[in-house]
């Protein structure tokens, strides 16, 4: 440790944090609040997810989201494909815009299985059932926040008994 200037004796790493350190940290916080702020609506979306909480549920994680720029290059700018992974299930969805301002969602479950699927939006909850190939579709979903929830499989059926939920999406 070099001690080249007069202040170094009180600025060593083993000294207690003082008011100047706290002022530096306040400055760092201000810089990042300005340079890379949290999206302002994120806490509201999280509260929406938590309000629909299901303590037993497995939380699926975002596994892949196709880059919108690639989609635009293909001339399919209104379509978005997102994959979610959980321990027991992979959920892949494609979101397309309808002419009336709503969106259409086509989805696949892997491993393929029949499950009840809920699409919870701010307004209400839509329900569909996947077919034996694991396919499901919601023809008309209002734009805004939404969250997919795959209900537990029936008893005696192969597959897990726990529901699987995705994080909240912005449609």
């Amino acid at each position, binding site marked *: 440790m070099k001690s080249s200037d007069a202040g170094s004796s009180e600025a060593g790493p083993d000294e207690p944090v*003082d008011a100047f350190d706290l002022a*530096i940290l306040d400055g760092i916080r201000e810089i990042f609040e300005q340079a890379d702020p949290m999206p302002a609506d994120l*806490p509201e979306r999280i509260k929406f997810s938590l309000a629909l909480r299901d303590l037993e549920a497995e939380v699926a994680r975002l596994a892949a989201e196709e880059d919108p720029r690639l989609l635009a290059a293909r001339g399919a700018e209104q379509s978005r494909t997102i994959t979610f992974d959980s321990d027991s299930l992979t959920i892949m969805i494609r979101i397309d815009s309808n002419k009336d301002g709503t969106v259409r969602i086509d989805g696949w479950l892997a491993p393929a299985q029949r499950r009840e699927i809920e699409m919870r939006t701010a307004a209400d909850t839509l329900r569909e059932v996947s077919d034996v190939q694991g396919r499901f579709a919601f023809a008309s979903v209002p734009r805004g926040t939404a969250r997919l929830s795959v209900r537990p499989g029936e008893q005696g059926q192969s597959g897990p008994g726990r529901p699987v939920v995705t994080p909240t999406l912005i449609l």
Partner: protein
Amino acid sequence: MADDPRSVTAPPSRPDRNARIAGMVNAAREGSEDALGQIVTELSPLLWHVARAAGLSSCEAEDVVQTVWMRLLSHLDGIRTSAALTGWLVVTTRREAWRVRAAGRRQLPADHDWLAALPDTGPGSEEQVIIDDQRRALWVAIGQLSRRCQELLRIIAFVPHPDYQAVAAELGMAVGSIGPTRGRCLAKLRAMLAG
């Protein structure tokens, strides 16, 4: 240090904030959506900066922050204090961010994109110009630190002061026998600002 004139903002006193957060955690455990919502509002910015400091894209960071809050629900039973809550959230977010980054098999961006430009606050009063100069000096100094130091300082800057010690210890930063010490990264930054 509380009466040092250089102290820029007086953080809420330790017992007040700790009691308030502990009360909200208790209420959330008993099912209060309102208490949980207040905790989310208060601590989500910290988690956002933890995830972004770990090198995640904005989309990934949003997803990780949501996932961590959902996971907290099944861990509330073991959390009684503000420091325990903040520590658990920071460590879980960081771990989840690493997992997402590893799953994407991505390298960290070679340079620090957020350092590309300091947003301009525009023309202002003489006082504003002085603040901007200080901020620019701080910005330049942060850019010269190691990536690890940048990450740690960005996290610690968003940790509520009373929880600083617990989080610094969790992150492997120096903690003295009677309280948090400055640590290597902050000491280095301070030396740069002095030089």
